[in-house]
């Protein structure tokens, strides 16, 4: 593919046409926070953490879904972007019931890492404390909606890589929830193959292996990315 150049924080960066700005930035060592992005899965641009400023456009754009174009000028680290990234993480913490001290993913959680990265020492918004279920019917795994951040990685890996499409999003807006089949217990699923890929890609403690306690998580997200690459079907 043809190579082209874009400017990231006034630094020239070479990249391939067709690549996303996120890929170009990562290749050039520029750090951009992400959550719904997962190497190899389709991009949805949902969490808005990888927003960048694009010279010549008043709107912010998500780097994961913005494709590179010749002499694009991108800013990835302005005061406004830092403020908005912190607000996005605060809103995520305020949306459901994230109690790190009693969570099995404590210490293995991308949401915690994002909190540290944006310097979030507290959440300014009132906690919404919605009622969420926990489905532990499956013998190997459990899903706890109190910890879900609706990044839909599980939906995408199950549909695009495993091909089972056990998970999908039901409802709308704040009431959206991840469901198995017709909102049935996971154990009764007619589509799940118990492959565990959704466990590996879940960035937080929503999908976790039952037999693992806090600190014993061995999630292998990179394994899924390699599998996708090996199969050649996924996007790089």
């Amino acid at each position, binding site marked *: 593919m043809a190579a082209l150049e874009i400017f990231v924080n006034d630094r020239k960066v070479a990249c391939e046409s067709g690549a996303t700005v996120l890929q170009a930035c990562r290749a050039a060592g520029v750090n951009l926070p992400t959550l719904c992005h997962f190497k190899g899965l389709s991009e949805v641009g949902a969490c808005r953490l990888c927003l960048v400023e694009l010279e010549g456009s008043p709107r912010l754009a998500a780097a994961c879904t913005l494709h590179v174009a010749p002499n694009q000028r991108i800013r990835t680290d302005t005061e406004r972007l830092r403020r908005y990234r912190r607000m996005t993480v605060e809103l995520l913490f305020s949306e459901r019931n994230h109690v790190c001290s009693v969570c099995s993913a404590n210490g293995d959680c991308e949401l915690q890492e994002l909190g540290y990265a944006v310097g979030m020492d507290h959440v300014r918004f009132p906690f919404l404390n*919605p009622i969420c*279920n926990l489905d532990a019917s499956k013998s190997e795994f459990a899903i706890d909606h109190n910890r879900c951040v609706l990044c839909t990685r599980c939906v995408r890996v199950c549909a695009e890589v495993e091909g089972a499409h056990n998970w*999908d999003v039901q*409802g*709308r807006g704040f009431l959206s929830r991840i*469901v198995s*089949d*017709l909102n*049935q217990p996971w154990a009764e699923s007619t589509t799940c193959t118990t492959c565990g890929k959704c466990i590996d890609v879940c960035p937080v403690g929503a999908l976790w292996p039952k037999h693992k306690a806090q600190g014993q998580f061995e999630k292998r997200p990179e394994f899924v990315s390699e599998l996708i690459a090996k199969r050649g079907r996924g996007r790089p």
Partner: protein
Amino acid sequence: MEPLNRASQIKTLTADDPRAARVLLEIERYRRSPDALIQVLHVAQDVFGYLSLDVLQFVGRELKLPPSHVYGVATFYHLFSLKPKAEHRVVVCTGTACQVRGAEKILEALRRGRGLTKGSPAAGGRLSLDHAHCIGACGLAPAVLIDERMQARADAGSIDGLVTAVTGVPR
């Protein structure tokens, strides 16, 4: 958040149920294309009255769509109802034109008068109260639909009596 559905609740529908046959006809009309899911669900809701789990499973299997995909679509759009509708339905329009003409007070009057909460049927499931974002009669604001009959320029005082008159369901 409602409790999980159990497989035991779901009955398998076949084409010898005339309603299912009508839905199958619609599916054939769209040459079984999975993109016709929403149009098929419209017909299914008209024919069955609401989208039960049996109907969702049936439509999903006929269109070769994963059940979670069908459930996701059916619960995204608020015209699709997964619960049986009450015998009588009152819909208070809370569109902007009706809102500035006192729709909220009408909704409040009905809620207090009949102990109804939005969307859930009361009075033994015979009457449900719901609010719509706009029912398209802005010139007659505030408008209320009582069993598909439009009541123009309703007011909080008389609405309760009117509902009793039209639906026959007392306070």
